């Protein structure tokens, strides 16, 4: 028999500031974007209020957009996988070092955030450019006469992404490694595991939540980027975000920009939903707090 419980409104009072903030700062803008995607772009920057699906039809039929989605997905996967491998190692080192001042190592990870990420991205021009540090050294050593071209291609974009997003991966993996009991690996070792087997049996599975959380962040951040391809990529290295940027800033076609924005939001939303189905979102809070 179901017991009737009186509706208790008090939790909702407490939640209301947060709910209001989310409603005004997140839900409302998204609704505007959705509404805007039905307008018609008459001329540069001139829109006509309407309810029609022209923009959506363009999106669904033009392979240019599909190609961009595919390229974005591919780039996000490459960056995420590389960041997972490259980030796990320093995270493991920081978690397991006997070095007394661990906070210093963590501070070093956070330090780059104090410099604009655009500036950090541009620094690669001075490292990998034709007049950059690497080519300078190679030429000085006489290993090459001509500068090796490393910039303005997909490789440079990947390097730029990894550079900027790696700390997110490291911090997430670090947090979950820190939470693992120090005696588990020794226990596995005494039961017959080599160091590598003990890592695979114990540490790796127990750090998967952190690895997954870091991967989600890096994936979403990469897939939503447009600045890095502009600074480090060639003409063909655009991502979906660049199409939005072009539509809104260059072509002043806000209805198409709104359509593309909503699409990106929707696709990344699906990724987050899939993730939370498997992992739950708790791990993200842990790492971010």
């Amino acid at each position, binding site marked *: 028999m179901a017991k009737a419980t009186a509706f208790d409104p008090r939790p909702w009072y407490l939640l209301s500031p947060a709910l209001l903030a989310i409603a005004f700062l997140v839900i409302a803008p998204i609704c505007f974007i959705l509404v805007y995607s039905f307008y018609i772009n008459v001329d540069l920057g001139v829109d006509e209020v309407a309810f029609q699906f022209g923009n959506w039809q363009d999106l669904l039929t033009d392979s240019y957009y599909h190609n961009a989605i595919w390229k974005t997905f591919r780039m996000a996967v490459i960056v995420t996988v590389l960041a997972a491998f490259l980030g796990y190692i320093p995270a493991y080192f920081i978690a397991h070092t006997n070095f007394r001042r661990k906070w210093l190592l963590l501070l070093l990870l956070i330090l780059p955030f104090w410099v604009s990420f655009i500036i950090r991205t541009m620094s690669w021009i001075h490292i990998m450019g034709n007049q950059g540090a690497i080519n300078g050294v190679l030429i000085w050593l006489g290993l090459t006469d001509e500068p090796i071209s490393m910039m303005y291609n997909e490789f440079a974009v990947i390097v730029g992404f990894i550079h900027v997003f790696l700390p997110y991966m490291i911090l997430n993996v670090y947090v979950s490694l820190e939470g693992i009991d120090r005696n*588990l690996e020794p*226990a596995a070792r*005494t039961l*017959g595991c080599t160091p590598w087997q003990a890592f695979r049996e114990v540490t790796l599975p127990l750090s998967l939540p952190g690895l997954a959380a870091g991967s989600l962040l890096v994936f979403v951040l990469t897939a939503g980027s447009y600045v890095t391809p502009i600074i480090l990529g060639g003409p063909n290295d655009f991502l979906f975000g660049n199409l939005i940027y072009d539509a809104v800033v260059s072509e002043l076609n806000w209805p198409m920009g709104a359509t593309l924005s909503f699409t990106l939001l929707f696709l990344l939303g699906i990724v987050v939903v899939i993730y939370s189905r498997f992992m739950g979102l708790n791990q993200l809070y842990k790492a971010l707090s």
Partner: protein
Amino acid sequence: MAQVELRGVTKSFGAFLAVKTVDIDFQEGSFTTLLGPSGCGKTTILRMIAGLEKPTGGDILIGGRRVNDVPVHKRNLGIVFQNYALFPHKTIGENIAFGLKYRGVSRADAAKKVSDALDIVRLPGVEDRYPTQLSGGQQQRIALARAIVIEPDVLLLDEPLSALDANLREELRVELKTIQHRIGVTSVFVTHDQSEALAMSDRIVVMSAGRVQQQGEPEEVYNAPATEFVASFLGAANLIEATVASADGADVVVDTRHFGRFAVPKKAANGLGPGARGKVVARAEKLKLYPAASAPEGGVSAPGTVEATDYQGQIVRYFVRVGDIQLQSVGMIDGSPFQEGTEIAVGIRPDECVVLPAEEPSE
């Protein structure tokens, strides 16, 4: 035969010497306890036996074979940690079968062994649960099952009872001893709790600051402490300054400021000769209190005052002032206990005392 031997084992962490030239034999099938205060190097010794730390100097032998360079996973040891260290992402069954899997035991045999091990620790049928679904005491039983199911050559236990609450601790320590006795595995038990050590051990190794202070059977270590540290670490002991007056006959005569001159058995005097300074050890439970002026004739006694009392149920502990020193006396309450401030006589039994050489102030 000694199953595990430490030969002059030393361990330093950087400039810090955690273990200083330790020699210990662990007899086959015995239950040996490393006892000492926190930070004295017990865990470090255990980890060296396990192969989790490499000795800086000396040799470790297991079953007569030098194992300094044998990696952990080839030593066939069971280890139980204070905080259980069960694999949280594996079921109880998988936890216990873990070591069997790496020993190539078939699934069917492993399942049988797991269920036998669970019977031994009296937790049958929990194979499919996860560690967090069990209480602390149950988790520690599982950890024990996981360690013994592989039939280890040596069972290493690092303060396995310390995380449990008092009642459970006593219950589990009886059980642990019973299981050890039944399967007869050579066991090395680490604790800072002297009552655990006295209750469970065949042999106790008392340690302090990385050094072995004394090793022997529990009652030997308790009744005939070899150093001041051992005397005061196991139970409450009174240390009374003394000078040896003569050491001719079967007895050694000592002079004390508070109890005058008396004789102790020669074997209790640690070879001290005339003129040597030392300390008479009188255990708190051997110190008898009498109403003032009614101390037995011919005994060794001194006048004193009860300064404080500490009732512990049937037992009472007195803190007694005799001249410029404070002594402790522990006894069963019979009749009415002495009140604080009472003038009393403190009696010691010389034949139950030990005399230790005065120690050089250590580093």
